[in-house]
């Protein structure tokens, strides 16, 4: 612990800690502690680059000391979901959990235990990790595959490059001559703490910046010279048309294509229309995307002729039906222009640059007895290593609710009977929330580790109060790109009767007759062991004392530099050893929605689908600047900034008689939410946006007054696992007067 005194206050101890929920950053916080209570925070004021916390981290005091913190273990007394609980002791609560775990294991087998492990804690010691290890020792459990955030981008990255490590250090953009920010809004989603500031520097040095997005986001408004609004779900068409311009005008890098890629000719056949008699011209794309043909052609020419250029394909457009195709099309565009493996270029893909987030935790992978020996999932990239989850014992996270209701008879690998929920507001943050509630009510037992009575915790039979990362120690690896670690020093004692996930595992393991393993050691000792296994933490004590370890790299990370400079000795980790414009693994799958080359594919909730007659507005469910998913939803300092509402263009609002700030219903066949309209030109006509993460709060008629976006999203996924979070169709109408 750092004993540096703040000059104006002799009673204050400054504890270096950090912020580590699931946004795109892990940031430094310095807690000023007085008489055992945090009275204020500062952030990184040390060496550059500083890892400055955003508004979420700065508001953390109101999260720690929120009056609604869960204070003691609870047992359900009413019907499940009714929200009636009684206070019980830790011993009673954990006896019940242990009894139910044993009963369900004996009655149905371990596969009936579903671990709903969420992303609410990103430390390496707490959260779902120790719970997974415990359940594994207990004989195993069923878990998900498919992460809502990025599964489409991940699949595309693996299919094209054979790896998810496709990103560059952010500062490398200073060498770019053009930056295209496609469906990417780091001003709100952070994408590593230094990203927005670096982009501002890139813009200030005169580099042309373009944003492609259905919304005039804070990123587009601040960091771009040009904004190209595009109809949701049609990004692939524009990328393919850009390839058309580049190939037909001979602007592609043939030498690069010949040397480092495979399958260019078959993509060319698709793009030029040799395959299907439909040349994918900018005019063809204009009718689909609404982007003028000349805008598409101009951007294509700029991108191909201003090398090195960085095309950064964000995950949002891949979080959609056929999202894999968008991400694949972007990767391929990087390849045919030879913008890969060079300073100032960019490969897109999954975009991880630094490796420190990869953990060696035992809860990942095939050491889970329930998954052992399970064959690869059909339509998975099972021949590739690292990044895909081909195990057929897992259930796609968009289909867990359906699996809970239908089990093996519905074609799922398990009959789920209980949910063990950790660091997850599961029903709020997975598609089709109303189905999720039905599914959770169908289970025999639900236990929840939580800090607040979330809509998911409300469905618990036993709710265990968990402390925050101010009340325990942990290490946070950064997100995707920056080489640093944050040591979250415990700043205050656990409030009320709360315990850490690790402490709970320790107590529960005893009741289950399991060896508690590492959990018997002190937090700091376990963290020392974890750190020693990393390879890039050479001074644990300094990390702990300073709260942050910034790793100096000799030069910025540029993915695939070795593969480009020395291809003989450094093949790409694909099956062919090359960048796969046409992917043989995909060809083998033989699925029409996972073609060997990226293609623009229509689908049943597209803007041109029959369903659009009934629900004519396309729904986006973006991230929001005041929340990380559903975390921070209830923090007053953040709630007052911009009230939750549905973004709607004035033309669409006027058509419906809706004024700014008025209550409206957003609905489709899956559900209905009632929130204020934010009438703004910053979203294109025909599109509405409800940022995800607001807490589900139904009234007596089942209308969600909280405005949970997933009441409206579909519980579906594309072949490669892409969630359809940005593909729902809705209607909006004025709310009935109460």
């Amino acid at each position, binding site marked *: 612990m750092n004993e540096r005194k*703040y*000059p*104006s206050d002799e009673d204050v101890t400054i504890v270096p800690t950090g912020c580590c929920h699931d946004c795109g950053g892990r940031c430094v916080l310095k807690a000023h502690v007085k008489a055992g209570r945090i*009275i*204020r*925070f*500062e*952030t990184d*004021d040390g060496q550059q680059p500083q890892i*400055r*916390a*955003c*508004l979420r981290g*700065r*508001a953390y*005091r*109101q999260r720690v000391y929120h009056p609604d913190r869960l204070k003691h273990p609870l047992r359900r007394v009413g019907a499940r979901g009714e929200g009636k609980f009684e206070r019980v002791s830790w011993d009673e609560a954990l006896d019940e959990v242990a009894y139910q775990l044993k009963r369900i294991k004996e009655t149905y087998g371990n596969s009936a235990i579903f671990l709903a492990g969420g992303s609410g804690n990103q430390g390496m010691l707490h959260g779902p990790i120790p719970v997974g290890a415990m359940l594994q020792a207990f004989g195993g459990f069923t878990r998900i595959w498919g992460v809502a955030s990025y599964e489409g981008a991940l699949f595309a990255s693996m299919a094209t490059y054979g790896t998810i490590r496709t990103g560059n250090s952010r500062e490398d953009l200073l060498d770019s001559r053009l930056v295209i920010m496609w469906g990417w809004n780091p*001003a*709100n989603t952070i994408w590593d*703490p230094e990203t*927005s*500031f670096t982009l*501002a520097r890139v813009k*200030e040095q005169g580099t042309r910046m373009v944003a492609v997005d259905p919304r*005039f986001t*804070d*990123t587009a*408004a*601040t*960091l771009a*010279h040009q*904004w190209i*609004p595009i109809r949701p779900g049609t990004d692939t068409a524009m990328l393919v048309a850009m390839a058309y311009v580049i190939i037909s005008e001979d602007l592609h890098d043939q030498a690069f294509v010949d040397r480092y890629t495979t399958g260019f000719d078959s993509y060319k056949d698709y793009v030029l229309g040799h395959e299907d008699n439909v040349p994918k011209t900018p005019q063809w794309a204009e009718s689909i995307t609404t982007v003028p043909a000349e805008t598409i052609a101009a951007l294509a020419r700029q991108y191909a002729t201003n090398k090195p250029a960085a095309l950064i394909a964000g995950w949002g457009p891949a979080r959609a039906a056929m999202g894999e195709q968008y991400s694949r099309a972007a990767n391929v565009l990087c390849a045919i222009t030879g913008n890969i493996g060079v300073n100032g270029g960019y490969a897109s893909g999954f975009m991880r640059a630094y490796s420190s987030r990869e953990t060696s935790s035992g809860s990942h992978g095939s050491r889970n007895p329930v998954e052992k020996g399970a064959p690869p999932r059909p339509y998975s990239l099972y021949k590739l290593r690292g990044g895909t989850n081909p195990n057929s014992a897992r259930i796609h996270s968009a289909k867990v609710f359906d699996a809970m209701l239908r089990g093996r008879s519905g074609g799922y690998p398990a009959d789920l009977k209980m949910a063990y929920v950790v660091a997850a507001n599961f029903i709020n943050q997975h598609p089709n929330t109303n189905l999720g509630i039905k599914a959770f009510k169908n289970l025999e037992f639900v236990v929840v580790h939580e800090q607040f009575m979330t809509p998911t915790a409300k469905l618990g039979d036993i709710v265990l109060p968990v402390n925050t990362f101010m009340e325990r120690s942990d290490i946070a690896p950064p997100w995707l790109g920056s080489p640093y670690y944050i040591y979250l020093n415990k700043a205050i004692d656990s409030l009320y009767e709360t315990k850490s996930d690790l402490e709970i595992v320790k107590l529960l393991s005893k009741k289950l007759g399991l060896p508690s393993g590492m959990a018997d050691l002190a937090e700091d000792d376990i963290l020392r062991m974890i750190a020693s296994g990393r390879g890039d933490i050479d001074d644990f004590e300094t990390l702990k004392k300073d709260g942050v370890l910034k790793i100096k790299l000799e030069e910025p990370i540029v993915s695939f530099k070795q593969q480009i400079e020395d291809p003989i000795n450094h093949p790409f980790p694909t099956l062919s050893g090359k960048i796969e414009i046409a992917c043989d693994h995909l060809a083998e799958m033989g699925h029409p929605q996972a073609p060997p080359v990226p293609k623009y594919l229509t689908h049943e909730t597209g803007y041109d689908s029959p369903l659009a007659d009934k629900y004519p507005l396309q729904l986006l469910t973006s991230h929001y*600047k*005041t929340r990380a998913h559903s975390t921070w939803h209830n923090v*007053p*300092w*953040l*709630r*007052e*900034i911009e009230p939750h509402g549905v973004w709607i*263009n004035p*033309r669409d609002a006027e058509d419906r008689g809706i004024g700014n700030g008025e209550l409206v219903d957003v609905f489709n066949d899956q559900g209905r939410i009632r929130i204020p309209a934010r009438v*703004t*030109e*910053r979203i*294109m*006509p025909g599109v509405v946006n409800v940022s995800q993460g607001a807490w589900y709060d139904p009234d007596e008629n089942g209308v969600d007054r909280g405005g949970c976006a997933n009441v409206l999203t579909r519980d579906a996924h594309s072949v490669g696992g892409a969630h359809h979070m940005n593909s729902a169709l809705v209607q909006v109408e004025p709310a009935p007067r109460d």
Partner: protein
Amino acid sequence: MTQMGIYFDQTRCTGCYTCAVACKDWHDIEAGSINRMRITPFERGVFPDLFAAYLAVACCHCQYPPCATACPAEAIAKRQADGIVTVDQKKCIGNKECHAACLKACPWDAPQFGPHEGAKMEKCDLCRDRFDNGRQAICVEACPMYALDVAPLTELKQKYGDRVSAAGFRYHEKYRPSVVFKTKSPAGQ
């Protein structure tokens, strides 16, 4: 006398509100009460030709502060050494009696009153507790975009130029607010 001033780079501001939240945390200000740092979003134009910007304004620490002139209780004063405009809460008679004369006099709403009747005025004092200990204002240290700075006005002008207006901010010659801006405009996009 040195006059302290505030610099705001409007071209860098993404509207993240980190400065405002850091301010409330440091000064322990409840939500829904006062805003020492105020962020105003702007949106102009019609789809797809748009301009959007944010303006962050705390207190401009005017050379001739209209709030001080308006205050019937002489509770507002300029510090001799650095020109920081401060309020003496012991002297402030609350917003009921004077009808918030200082707030009405300020073109930028810097004087702030809590929601209860008779609330006393509070406003940005450039983090006087930090300043007097040689520390930068909390908003400046918080900004992830390095879009804010607090320093003697002459230094700010040397470093950043002498623009004194921005989108959403009108300069008043008679008050001489101690501000420097980098201004965002549609043409500057």
